[in-house]
């Protein structure tokens, strides 16, 4: 995939994440900070496989800053960036490992996102007791990660853009030669 295609796909995926983030903000909230589906995690799992670690990190930062400015306030950007950074770091270490599918990557991402957010909150609010809150948030994060990871796996099976982009390139080349 050449650089232009990579950039285009990254841009499309960021806008998909922003739309999903807005959609999630319309869903009824539980009142418990940190409990949400995290559909953009699904997109980040895909981008880790399709576009690599570097681009995924850029996408995560752009998405969190833009969505924070659109929907929340600057303070919330700090929490989501903390969660996003830890989550992406762990997920990028797991992608491509033997015996780990996108589902496992999604689970690890969901859980570590919550851990990063709680760690940031513990530091900013100076309330160490928040750690016990992870006893609830980690299984929730795992469940949400299971959903988003499964979604990513299904999407990868049915929408393989790398192959599609490559095959169109080949098609055009072979088509040009034969005609």
């Amino acid at each position, binding site marked *: 995939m050449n650089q232009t295609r990579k950039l285009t796909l990254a841009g499309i995926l960021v806008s998909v994440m922003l739309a999903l983030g807005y959609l999630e903000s319309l869903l009824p*909230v*539980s*009142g*418990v*900070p940190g409990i949400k589906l995290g559909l953009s995690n699904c997109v980040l799992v895909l981008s880790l496989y399709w576009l690599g670690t570097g681009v995924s990190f850029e996408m995560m930062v752009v998405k969190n800053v833009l969505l924070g400015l659109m*929907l*929340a*306030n600057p*303070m*919330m950007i700090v*929490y989501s960036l903390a969660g996003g950074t830890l989550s992406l770091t762990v997920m990028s270490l*797991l992608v491509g*490992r*033997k*015996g*780990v*599918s996108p*589902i*496992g990557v999604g*689970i*690890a991402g969901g*859980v570590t996102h919550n851990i990063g957010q709680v760690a940031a*909150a513990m530091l*900013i*609010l*100076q*309330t*160490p*007791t*928040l*750690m*016990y*809150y*992870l*006893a*609830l948030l*980690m*299984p929730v*994060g*795992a469940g949400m990660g*299971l959903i988003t990871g499964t979604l990513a796996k299904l999407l990868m099976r049915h929408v393989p853009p790398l192959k599609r982009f490559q095959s169109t390139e080949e098609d055009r080349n072979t088509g040009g030669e034969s005609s």
Partner: protein
Amino acid sequence: MKRRDWLILGSVLAASLILLLLRPQASQNAGTAYLRISVPGQTYQLVPLTETRDIVIEQADGSRNVVEIFPGGFRMKESNCSNQDCILQGDVTVDNVGSRVLANEVICLPHRVVLELVTADGQPVENTASAQTAQPAATDDATLSDTPENTVAPVENTP
């Protein structure tokens, strides 16, 4: 799900189980419960939870929270924050700290406001934290225009 996917899921569930077991159990505290308000740059007196009234917390950046206290407990009544999570966290009372997800706390993340149910000596009612001493005297931050005395002023008083 591949083999190591299960390993990831299993270790996460094990870790949360350990945290759940380590979580301190609620202690039966006799006596008056107090509310500790933590706001960046401001220190508040412990508020005895013996009457029903509202406490307004205002910060220099326009953040505004209203806490309703009542005998034995409190709740976040109003907040001009973006997600309103603090309001949905509901009542904190001496009786329900053991069953609440956030135990003795109500947290407004965007405004960095933490409300805690504590005993007279500043210990969390759930008896979780280390020996954190309460600050009985109000000391206002010089950088803030609004002093705690002003912001703690009761809005309505129903004895």
